[in-house]
């Protein structure tokens, strides 16, 4: 089919004709069908997230946990209550749990209960206290810059080396480097250290909490620099960096994730129709949840949301609109392949299908 269209990949008006691709034609391309079959086996994943503790052993500037009222929820430390919650979650169709914060490593017994009920999940931690090896979830260790920066912004000394000591050689571990507006250059030093120790690394982009007034927030210029650093590291450390060119586009775009893709978490999506808006919940430490506040990064400013966890749900859910042409669909497959390798134990990332950046559907590349 050929059709006259009013937009091209950069979203600009054009009078040119563009091929309208059938899905079967896109899948016919070498490698694409195989990757599609590989990732679609995981379409059964349905996540919810849980605050395991309202305590943290450090205090970071810009921490979204200590914004809003979730920090004031009382901790329910009763193992039976948690077991019952997990069983109820399973019964309503949840297949994947994200254990978050404040700091889940301070509540290892509760994390273990979650793991016993759910074989698939992940834990977001600052990495200063090792999570016991029998809790076989993916472990995301937050890195906010080099050690000087961590000492300043997170008030923690020798942070990276302590994190590496806890998780070197651990197949659960993925180090998550959060780009703020003022730690972009430091990523090269951090990535070199992590690569030297054989650690896996992925990227996050600082997304300001509601009302945040500090200087970590990105500008269009720092987003551009962040994108360049991501692309450079993708080339420099292909065996260590879990990322793709399309991840770089989606997370450093001048528009946030909601504007680009339409966030489907309950907090931005009032409907309970099919999808994330229907199934996702974010439980506080008192085991309550609030639909109006429920997303994986509550109290983040939605207009500035470029968070890696948010993208893992928001971008992947938009398969249909990425199936317009082969380049865009390959980029989406790379994104999903990246997301699965970061979040699912024993899922191994393949080589990216596309080594160039594609524009998000109906948008420009910036």
């Amino acid at each position, binding site marked *: 089919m050929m059709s006259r269209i009013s937009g091209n990949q950069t979203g600009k008006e054009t009078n040119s004709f563009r091929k309208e691709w059938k899905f079967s034609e896109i899948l016919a391309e070498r490698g694409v069908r195989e990757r599609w079959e590989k990732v679609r086996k995981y*379409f059964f994943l349905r996540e919810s997230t849980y605050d395991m503790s309202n305590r943290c052993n450090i205090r970071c500037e810009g921490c979204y946990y200590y914004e809003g009222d979730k920090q004031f929820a009382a901790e329910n430390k009763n193992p039976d209550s948690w077991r019952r919650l997990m069983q109820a979650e399973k019964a309503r169709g949840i297949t994947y749990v994200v254990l978050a914060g404040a700091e889940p490593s301070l509540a290892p017994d509760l994390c273990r209960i979650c793991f016993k009920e759910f074989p698939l999940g992940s834990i977001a931690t600052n990495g200063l206290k090792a999570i016991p090896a029998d809790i076989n979830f993916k472990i995301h260790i937050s890195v906010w810059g080099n050690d000087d920066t961590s000492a300043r912004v997170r008030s923690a000394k020798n942070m990276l080396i302590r994190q590496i000591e806890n998780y070197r050689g651990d197949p659960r571990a993925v180090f998550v480097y959060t780009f703020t507006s003022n730690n972009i250059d430091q990523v090269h030093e951090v990535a070199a250290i992590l690569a030297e120790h054989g650690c896996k690394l992925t990227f996050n982009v600082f997304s300001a909490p509601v009302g945040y007034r500090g200087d970590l927030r990105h500008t269009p210029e720092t987003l551009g620099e962040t994108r360049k650093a991501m692309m450079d590291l993708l080339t420099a450390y292909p065996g260590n960096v879990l990322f793709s060119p399309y991840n770089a586009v989606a997370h450093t775009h001048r528009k946030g994730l909601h504007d680009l893709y339409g966030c489907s978490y309950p907090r931005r999506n009032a409907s309970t129709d*099919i999808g994330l808006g229907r*199934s996702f919940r974010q439980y506080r430490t008192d085991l309550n949840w609030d639909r109006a506040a429920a997303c994986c990064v509550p109290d983040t400013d939605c207009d500035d949301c470029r968070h890696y966890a948010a993208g893992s749900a928001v971008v992947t859910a938009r398969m249909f609109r990425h199936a317009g042409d082969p380049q865009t669909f390959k980029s989406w497959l790379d994104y999903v392949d990246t997301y699965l390798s970061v979040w699912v134990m024993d899922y191994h990332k393949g080589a990216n299908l596309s080594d160039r950046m594609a524009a998000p559907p109906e948008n420009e590349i910036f």
Partner: protein
Amino acid sequence: MPMKTNIEEIILHVARVMIDELKLEDITPEGFDPDIDLVDEIGIDSMDLATVALVLRDHYAIRIEEDDYPKLTNVRLIAEYIEQKLSEKSVAAAN
């Protein structure tokens, strides 16, 4: 390209795509209850629906809008949606 647009034919085809794409076991297109709720009773999610929608888009050469997904909660509703799109297409072609 299918030429028959009879609603019963479309229902059968949608059921067949559903069964093939989502690997639903122990059910035939003829035995697929077109009024069963796909979300609550079959357990399909938005990614499943997107997959089915892409295959149906190819087959019928029609646009299926993402915003319309919430309306497509059973096979009959999907078939009626396709029938509607096909008739809009033939009206547009005639004009």
